[in-house]
């Protein structure tokens, strides 16, 4: 080394964790959103591409999916944002009791959603191998299910973790980021819900 270092900035006063875009975890989650969002966009593009081939949509004699399970799912998903936001804010205030309560609530809601999702698969009125319409509808639903399942497991793990002695500032950051992931899960659901349940009815 040619010159001696000049010590100009003391880093010790800096915190060891921070929320939102100040945390690396946030950047990881956002990158994940971009990746999965692109995958969804590709699947949606495939949906429109196949729809615009020369045929009715769904191709006869298939009917569009039944509305009940999917609509119940959507309503519950949107409602789940309430405990989700409460959990996020509590985490940002590092307030353990509400975080624990909301995580348990989220775990239970996740269970209910997974059950509704099973009913959705059963009421699609087409199977994945019957034609490309069926294939792409199942693709969209399976992709989304993978995400909600992953976030649900993530939530279960965090619920357990926040009931142990490992609670720390960084774990509150993880809880806040999990809440952000949940938003991705229902935000991506909305266009898919529209495509699976409504577009075939409107396109006719």
């Amino acid at each position, binding site marked *: 080394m040619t010159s001696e270092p000049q010590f100009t900035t003391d880093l010790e006063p800096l915190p*060891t964790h921070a929320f939102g875009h100040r945390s690396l975890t946030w*950047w990881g989650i956002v990158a994940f959103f971009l990746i999965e969002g692109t995958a969804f966009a590709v699947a949606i593009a495939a949906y429109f591409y196949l729809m615009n081939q020369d045929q009715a949509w769904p191709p006869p004699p298939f009917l569009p999916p039944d509305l009940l399970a999917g609509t119940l799912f959507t309503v519950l998903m949107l409602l789940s944002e309430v405990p989700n936001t409460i959990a996020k804010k509590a985490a940002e205030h590092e307030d353990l009791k509400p975080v624990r309560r909301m995580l348990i609530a989220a775990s239970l809601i996740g269970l209910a959603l997974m059950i509704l999702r099973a009913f959705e698969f059963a009421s699609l009125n087409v199977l994945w191998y019957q034609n490309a319409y069926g294939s792409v509808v199942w693709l969209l639903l399976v992709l989304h299910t993978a995400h909600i399942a992953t976030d649900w497991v993530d939530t279960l793990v965090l619920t357990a973790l926040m009931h142990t002695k*490992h609670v720390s500032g960084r774990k509150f950051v993880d809880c806040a980021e999990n809440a952000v992931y949940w938003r991705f899960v229902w935000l991506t659901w909305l266009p898919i819900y529209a495509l699976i349940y409504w577009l075939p009815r409107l396109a006719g």
Partner: protein
Amino acid sequence: MTAKKKKPREYLRDGPDFTGAPLHEKLSETWRDGPGLIGWIKSVDHKSIGKRYLVTAMVFLALGGVLAALMRLQLSGAEQEIIGPDRYNQIFTMHGTTMMFLFAVPVMDAMAIYLVPLMLGTRNTAFPRLNAFSYWMYLAGGSLLWVAFVLNIGPDAGWFSYTPLSGPEYSLGKRIDVWAQMVTFTEVAALAVAVSLTATILKKRAPGMTLARMPIFVWSILVVSLMVIFSMPSVATASGMLLSDRLVGTQFYNSYEYGDSLLWQHLFWFFGHPEVYIIFLPAAGFVSEIVQAYTGRRTFGYTAIVLALCATGLLAFGLWVHHMFTTGLPRLGYAFYTAASMAVAIPAGIQIFCWIATIWTGRPRFMVPLLWVIGFIVTFVIGGLSGVMLASVPLDLQVHDTYFVVAHFHYVLIGGAVFPLLGAITYWFPKFAGRLMSERLGRIGFWLSFLSFHATFFPMHIVGLQGMPRRVYTYPAGMGWETFNLISSIGAVVFAASVALFAVNMLLSLRKGERAADNPWGAPGLEWATASPPAPYNFAHIPIVADNSPLWNEERPVAYGLRVEDREMIVTTAVEAWPDVREPSPEPTAWPLIAALATTVLFVASIFTPWALVIGAPPVAAALVAWFWPKRHHEGEPVIE
């Protein structure tokens, strides 16, 4: 390794009171890998991971090169029967697949993983365990492919596997399933690296290193990482759809059930075109760094080059239909893609102008890396110009799927990516290994490679125009193609030998090369402020920068106050790079390997039964939970284990 925790505020930290040799000892103890094979397996050190990526990628380069030699042997004469059609079709598929998925992208990832933290003045990447995981996934995917090939169930429908040929009806057995799942492995690996590098570049730069002061190579990796994020999901989804067509009867690509085989082409090439720029842009980054060191001046046109990199990255997503000009899509659409495909030559041209201007106005030292840069310019421009021809629909209608295209892409991939890569490996070898590569062997190797490359690939332009299609295991006598094919084949053998010579140079230099100082080239970047090779912790004190050529200034301002007995780095703000948070960095761990093994079992088994997805998922989930679950309770400041 972790000392007993004292009360907070009594951590040992670096600073004016704790510097020099005692600091080096403590930091080394904290940051180095454990001993032996176990230590190597558990490593999360970006330098170790970068090196293993590099070595593995070069092994695949060699394997892909052997396949090329076999192809050229079969094609050296008309109507030869050295290799039959089935084997040949596997060989050309494996050659393309190996080079594109297992060499070209991973080798750029290797260089980036190794160099980016050093260039940014930090001690490790963000998400180092994710990087470790990505390596094992890459290795698993490559192994899957090659084991299948050795067992004679290697894919045989080309590296881009068009449907319906690659679909369930016309490709029987598991060959294409192996290919499609290998794509999943390598895409997961590349995406993981892209996430890690993006977070590193945006959040872990040295204080004072604003975006406008980043090295150009780092810019190229940032652009490339974002391109990976937006392009690879397309091929991953497409190959997943192909797997499901083949394994569970979906009809995505089956035009008899409302599907479409052209859907595959769109989804593949939406990834495939950005892919080639993902390979080229880091090479352009190498060139900017090399040229600056060997001319003694900052690369001319920093802003223009950065804008050119960004423009290329964006434009690359609007070109993919130029791979489909013969499929009968609407003419008006084609016209747009011609214009866009021509336009992408402009940012490339801007960079070429700047690099040559740097040489002109600098004081060039013609050491081996600069020779590779010159060879790159001479070669890549030819490839770019044949690309301009291919961009024109009428011309493409004649030369698409002929040896003209084969010539074009080898000119841009070898000339445009491999030449800069070999220069870059030579240039940074002292940093990787602490020794210099042999200048003499390097020169001989360069000239051998350069001349034999042109001998091999230039004639292909001509045979393509003379009517020789690509992907043919033999050709008839009397077409006038024999002479040029023979020249290409001879050139190929010499070219392979020249690459082998490069590898020999690396191996010999590792043992006997001249020992290197910290900064043998007098280059300006932060990576040259570390030892050769760097200590496990990279920088004893985090450097602060004031411009984009820090080592060409007299001062060495540093930040201090990080913990010494636990792994700690800083996170800075994304644009201005103010120090923001003290971030613990993960300790070595075997969980990335275990998670990768579980994922490998899941992916490979799902080629044989869809139930593997259900049965294989819990072990993967368990491994991931174990990865993140805290191993010990730490009072006070955080430690990640």
